[in-house]
């Protein structure tokens, strides 16, 4: 099958970009910033990136607090399965993302059960993850390799985002953040001390399931920009950095969102002015911030 999967659409668009649109840095920052906002595809990318970063910052903070990084990572990989299933079935990819991530959240909640033992629970999560990825690969294979942009499913692309996609992103993000905001107090309580929370009448189990569903929702949304493999960078790293810097909940959430926004904007801008993928910049920038936070705080 030659190089059909890997010399796929984004790369072509990339070279097109290099020849016609891409002008490089001009040593004039005002012009450069202006160039960033000139083209509609870049405006959409920035809007989508902003929405995704805000949501990932909020949800990620709770995910890190609840030590559910492994579950979050597994959910983010099921996004790949969802996308490939949708491509195979010929339905919109967004539908695949949300359906399969929702199912993944339910499966994870079912696997954890009331009596949790760390080892076997993580074995269940690992099995779910590998199985989901296996299915995803099966769907891609059944599609006979003409699936353009397997790499953009896995690693994301910020090119070609339409204004209707941005609108869907906005609605979903609003729902996810609203749900977390409504449940914020009991969720915080249940995350910090589940036993005491249960004793004082908080429905810990239900909250856990609800949170996993919201996590699935936001992962499905984020992976449309960053790809299934890199969602994690936006979810976990800014949140982990924020929790290093402050233990106060509200300040932490705000800081986490701010960091996620910063790395997304910088990452998009850097990717615009170079040939390397946005995922690389976002992960590297957020990791650098995390290392700085660990060194100085």
């Amino acid at each position, binding site marked *: 099958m*030659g190089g059909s999967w890997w*010399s796929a659409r984004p790369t072509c668009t990339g070279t097109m970009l290099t020849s016609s649109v891409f002008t490089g840095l001009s040593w004039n920052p005002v012009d450069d910033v202006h160039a960033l906002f000139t083209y509609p595809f870049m405006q959409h990318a920035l809007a989508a990136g902003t929405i995704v970063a805000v949501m990932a910052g909020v949800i990620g903070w709770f995910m890190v607090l609840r030590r559910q990084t492994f579950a979050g990572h597994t959910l983010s990989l099921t996004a790949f399965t969802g996308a490939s299933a949708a491509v195979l079935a010929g339905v919109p990819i967004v539908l695949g993302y949300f359906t399969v991530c929702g199912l993944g959240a339910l499966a994870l909640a079912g696997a954890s059960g009331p009596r949790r033992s760390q080892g076997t629970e993580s*074995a269940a999560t690992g099995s779910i993850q590998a199985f989901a990825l*296996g299915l995803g*690969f099966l769907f891609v*294979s059944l599609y006979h390799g003409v699936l353009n942009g397997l*790499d953009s499913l896995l690693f994301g692309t910020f090119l070609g985002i339409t204004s209707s996609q941005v609108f869907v992103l906005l609605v979903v993000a609003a729902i996810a953040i609203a749900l977390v905001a409504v449940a914020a107090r009991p969720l915080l309580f249940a995350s910090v001390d589940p036993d005491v929370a249960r004793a004082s009448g908080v429905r810990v189990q239900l909250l856990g399931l609800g949170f996993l569903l919201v996590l699935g929702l936001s992962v499905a949304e984020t992976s449309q920009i960053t790809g299934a493999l890199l969602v*994690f*960078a936006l979810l976990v790293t800014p949140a982990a950095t924020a929790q290093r810097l402050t233990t106060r909940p509200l300040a932490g959430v705000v800081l986490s969102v701010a960091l996620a926004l910063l790395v997304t904007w910088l990452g998009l801008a850097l990717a615009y002015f170079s040939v390397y993928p946005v995922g690389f910049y976002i*992960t590297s920038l957020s990791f650098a911030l995390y290392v700085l936070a660990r060194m100085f705080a």
Partner: protein
Amino acid sequence: MLAQEFMRNALIAGSFVGIACGLVGWFVVLRAQVFAGDALSHVAFTGALAAAALGIDIRAGLFLATILGGVVMGALGDRARADDVVIGTLFAWTLGLGVLFLTIFTTNGSGSNGTAGVRVLFGSIFGLSTTDVRISVVLAVAAVAVLAVLGRPLLFASLDGAVAAAQGVPVRMIGLVFLGLVGLVAAQATQAVGALLLLGLLAAPAGAAHRLTGRPYLGLGLSALFALGSVWVGLTLSYVFPTLPPSTMIISTAAGIYVTARSLSPLRRLVG
């Protein structure tokens, strides 16, 4: 089926990979380090693609990256058990690097080699050469040998680190060596089922074994047996139905075994 050379290679290499994964996986689940295994599988991806981008042997990058990754993770964590958040941030970045190498490789590399990324992510067990098979047999034997030497103190340290440390067992060192070993096995399994799916071979058979028995030796045996069975059944299925990719079939079988064991067994859990 056995007349085909590629099938024989796949079966031999797959069996040894399966046994190594089953045995090491049992300890991984016992020590609740599945997430570390997950991280190592992504390190494997980056290592292989870094080697591809640099134009050196992919295997060299693979093994170097995973073993190093395992040791680093062990060194970072308290009592050689790295914190989930630390692991998460580290390997999110590693993946980002992997994407960079992938881009460098696909834009600089020749078009004929364009599927290297897919092969690393999802494996190519039917494409193994005789040399690959030989390497994986040697490494599997080495891994099992290390595990045999390490087994008793590792079990002790995993079950009760504090008591083991008090008795003079070098808990931290053992944890480091163990994660290095997981890295070795992960690199080996990457060649068979791919970086993204090897977690299934580490976690599912071992998880099933832990569900069924709390006794260490029986559990280790069951785990290796389940992994071996998954490889054989998966390869056969994929041979009979050529549209089904072998790595998916292997992992699906392993996941099936896990689900079956789960539903069979509220038997008993001594180890936990």
